[in-house]
């Protein structure tokens, strides 16, 4: 596959195919992040679509020294935030809705959205949720997350740690530690 910087340059000059290639590499992570953040498949689709539109429009102003994935994650987080605000105003979907299709993957998605993990994520403080999702679902490093959130790496470490622990508490996981090795 053509390397990212070449794809970015092509996309910056208006090449939609190049942009599609860039997005193809990120769509799963972006969409999963949106699903988990919003707890709604259709809201997540809207948020990803909005992020892609914003990214496309702003792409000529993207600077090469930044990572494209980091950049688009920032846009995605804002689109998620806006979608959440829209829902709060009554303009979005209800939680755990899944578009009606014949795709069997939708069953898994629906199951996940009505599951305990999503319920716990919905309860988790927003600050921690973004950090743990980017770390443990998207697989981003805490350095990347720090860049995306615009905070110090130590802040990200703290948020990830607290977020993980709080999530486990919300899931009802016992914090009882094993006797050995610690």
């Amino acid at each position, binding site marked *: 596959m053509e390397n990212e910087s070449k794809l970015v340059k092509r996309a910056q000059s208006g090449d939609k195919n190049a942009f599609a290639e860039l997005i193809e590499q990120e769509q799963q992570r972006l969409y999963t992040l949106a699903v988990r953040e919003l707890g709604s498949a259709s809201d997540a689709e809207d948020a990803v679509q909005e992020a892609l539109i914003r990214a496309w429009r702003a792409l000529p102003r993207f600077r090469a020294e930044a990572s494209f994935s980091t950049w688009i994650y*920032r846009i995605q987080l804002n689109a998620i935030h806006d979608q959440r605000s829209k829902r709060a105003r009554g303009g979005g979907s209800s939680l755990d809705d899944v578009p009606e299709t014949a795709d069997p993957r939708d069953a898994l998605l629906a199951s996940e959205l009505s599951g305990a993990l999503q319920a716990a994520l919905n309860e988790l403080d927003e600050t921690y949720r973004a950090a743990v999702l980017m770390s443990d679902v998207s697989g981003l490093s805490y350095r990347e997350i720090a860049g995306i959130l615009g905070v110090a790496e130590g802040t990200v470490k703290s948020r990830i740690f607290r977020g993980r622990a709080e999530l486990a508490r919300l899931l009802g996981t016992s914090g009882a*530690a094993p006797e050995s090795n610690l």
Partner: protein
Amino acid sequence: MEDTHLNDIQLFEYANGELDDGDRLRADGHIAHCDECRSLLTLAESGASALQSSPRFDLRAERLSSTINELGPQEKRETRGVIPWRRWLTVLAPVAAVAGVVVIVVIANNGGDSGASESAAPAQEAVAEAAAPTSADGEGRALQGSAQAADEAAADAALAEPDSADLFSEAAPAEAPSAPTVEAASEDASAAESAPAPAEEPARAEEPAAASPAPAAELAPSPAEEPAPSPAVPEGDGLIASVTGPAEVVVAFLATMEIESSIAPDGAVEVAREVADATAEALAAEFPAGPVVVRVIEGG
């Protein structure tokens, strides 16, 4: 470390195997007899496992392709905007005035992840670590928000030594401007596309190219947040202005003028060389002197 609880950063680094041998031994010593820290480690491990083993989802192909196909025109790369930035800035100015000082410098190099950035990282983490709850009585151990002040202080404390002198070759000292007065907030939400998010609202983090003017309240530091120390800006090298405020305020302000900027890991604000003059002019006209570095990166 044996007698006090490990803070969240230390616990994270312990779990990640990032502590050096000495710290690791001290952490082992504490954790061996501390049920609370041991419990937190177990919980965090469990939470991470639940997330890491969860399924990933693909966006429906037809939705993705239709989105791509319907994309409209791209924005032009402009440096001057039409947003009523002065009106918006007046709301942020009092926040900036209490939050610290921003030094604007120009460097003639790319490298957003410069040596300056690297040198800043330990300082950031040190601040976070120092501020995080470590008391033996367990104060601040509640998971929800107890370390927020420490967290966010770390973000604002991230200032670094500037890069080598040759990187600051284009600067000219600027006079310290006066602080603006308060008028009214801008209702212009259309510019909401960038700026690293203020620590209080991490979800608002968009592309550095077009900052989102966050509400002034979101940009205000918490009482626990100390103004960051002034970076050692080389005299005569690259300094074009010095202004007041957290880096987020500067980025957001510049965005209102359609000047792209972003916050580097060392806390500096970076702008493209082509807008250096506009940046210096705008900041010199509106902000008093202070400590966050803003530099120009070429090739952006």
